[in-house]
């Protein structure tokens, strides 16, 4: 309704009222605009400058042009650094492997919690606990103690089978198994999001399906999964973002230590972080393209949601 009112205003001319609306909008977001300009946009530009210059620190920051081509810092990251390329590759492959594990796991847990069970609160409490306590230093301590992996005999047998694979594939899979608990620990929020989504699927739809003779399996594929499909995208993006910015991330440690190492320094660290950002951005785009809903389906989904709200 309010939109219609505004449209009428727009058609006539800029009334004093709309101008005031604009002004108040900017008043409310003003602090953020100042902040985002200094701490995000300006910072981005500056870090780009760092990455394409040689930084000298003497009192202030002095930028020197690079002697060996403008991509010198980036080239250096890949040619002189022993750790960074492998760590980055491991991170990328690890992320791609972890993502489906986390999504599938949290969906299964949400489905279990959504069925009629006692003590749902208690189970929810347990599955959400890692969101509170899973932090970089804690995870590091746990990995050091070797409690990050599920103690199972079959793990060794499975890894034995994979031994023949090339190192760069074997390594991430090995990591996946040896820190399975930590990976599952990352699914707290995702479980809650799926659970909330599942609870919004109207019961009548399931009832209708069972009357028509659909099995539980069919109901899952035909009703449950399509209903939470948009949440799968949301959860995937959320997972990638949290894993990429999380404290137990080795690359972040590398960047941090490079910043304060005399031989590497600011510009080197910034080149590293831009490469890292690019990798994360590419993964995000791929995830988005793979999981986004096709437009026609989206219309149906929106329609369904409207119907649901009507009920």
């Amino acid at each position, binding site marked *: 309704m*309010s939109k219609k009112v505004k449209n009428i205003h727009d058609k006539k001319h800029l009334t004093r009222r709309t101008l005031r*609306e604009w002004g*108040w909008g900017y008043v*409310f*977001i003003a*602090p*953020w605009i100042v*902040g*985002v300009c*200094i*701490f995000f946009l300006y*910072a*981005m530009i*500056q*870090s780009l400058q760092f990455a394409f210059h040689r930084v000298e620190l003497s009192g202030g*920051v002095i930028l020197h042009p690079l002697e060996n081509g403008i991509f010198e810092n980036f080239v250096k990251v890949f040619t002189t650094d022993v750790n960074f390329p492998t760590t980055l590759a491991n991170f990328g492959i690890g992320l791609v492997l972890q993502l489906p594990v986390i999504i599938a796991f949290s969906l299964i847990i949400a489905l279990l919690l959504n069925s*009629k*069970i006692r003590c749902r*609160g208690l*189970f929810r*409490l*347990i*599955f959400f*606990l890692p*969101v*509170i*306590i899973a*932090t*970089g230093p*804690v995870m590091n*301590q*746990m990995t050091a*103690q070797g*409690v*990050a992996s599920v103690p199972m005999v079959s793990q060794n047998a499975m890894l034995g089978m994979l031994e023949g694979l090339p190192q760069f594939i074997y390594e991430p899979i090995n990591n996946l198994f040896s820190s399975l*608990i930590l990976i*599952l*620990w990352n699914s707290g929020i995702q479980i*809650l*999001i799926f*659970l*909330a*989504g599942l*609870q919004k699927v109207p019961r*009548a739809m399931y*009832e209708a399906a069972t*009357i028509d003779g659909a099995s539980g399996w069919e109901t899952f594929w035909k009703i449950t999964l399509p209903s939470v499909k*948009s949440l799968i995208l949301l959860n995937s993006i959320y997972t990638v*973002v949290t894993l990429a*910015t999380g*404290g137990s991330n080795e690359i*972040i440690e590398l960047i941090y230590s490079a*910043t304060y190492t005399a031989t590497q320094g*600011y510009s080197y660290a*910034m080149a590293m*972080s831009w490469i890292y*950002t690019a990798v*994360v*951005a590419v993964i*995000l785009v791929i995830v988005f393209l793979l999981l986004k809903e096709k437009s026609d389906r989206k219309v149906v989904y929106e329609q369904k949601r409207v119907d649901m709200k009507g009920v």
Partner: protein
Amino acid sequence: MLLTEMKLKENGTAAVPAGRRIVRENRKEKWKKRLLGSADKRGWIGSTVVYLLLIVISFIFVYPVLYMISRSLMSRNDLLDSSAMWIPSSLTLHNYESAILTMDFWNSLLKNVYLAAVSTLAQVIICSAVGYGFARYNFPGKKIWMGVLILAFLLPGQTTALPNYLVFQNLKMIDGTIKPFLITALLGQGFKSTLCILIFYNFHKQTPQSLIEAAEIDGAGHIKAYFQIAIPLATAAIVVVTLFSFVWYWNETYLVRNYLGYGSTRATGLTTLMLELNAFEDSYANAYSTWASSVTSTDRINDAVRMAGTVLAIAPLMIFYFVLQRQFVESVDRAGITGE
């Protein structure tokens, strides 16, 4: 309508003519139903499987925590004794005593609470206002700013961390005080501020515009409408953002290290328990060398002390979580993060 249809159908099948065979079959059916379940009720087998799965996975989830607690209570002899895998032969709080000394626990805890609470407060106030501004008003350039907001959410913060550090260094504010935290939070650039703004944006969008417009017609100004209508209706979002901001500020190490400065120690400035845990090994070595004359060599750092330190670092948040668990868990779906 669907329900009535279903009932009709059920009645239809139940009304099949009865006989002796059918009685026996009914009994069989009943047991089968109990074990395997029917369309609307899960059987015993199904329930057992579900509970078993949940219990096993729950155990896997809490296993590291249980392990840490059990380890932290072990004496040095138990650590070496492989038969005392889980239950310590004698409970000792000695590890906790050394960990408390190493981390300067009470002092660090106090500083940590201060840092997290003040920053959270600033973050909630600003993010709510910004989220409201985006949700309630239309203004030129809104789409661009929203784009920037989402970009800031998606990109990892490492590219901006260093320039931000330099900003504060130029202002001479990297001195182990709360200033950098407060300023970033007040400008909507705190830890995960962007996510908080998006949560508030989603939530304020659900408040009926007509309600606010009615209030404005009744003479309430824009500020008054925000405080008296939008804020009271957004309690769930305020709860979720407050709780999570606190947790985020508590758990962050990378940016905290940046803002407090590399050389900041607990003697001169603020610290957090996570920083203390990060530096646990070194602190312990330092502390150990000063105690060396009074303690025996068995007090060298071991797993039990490390685990005691870890437990101490997460204990405050665990208590916080168990006390406010309902708010934590339920606010997530009430705050509309699910993309409503």
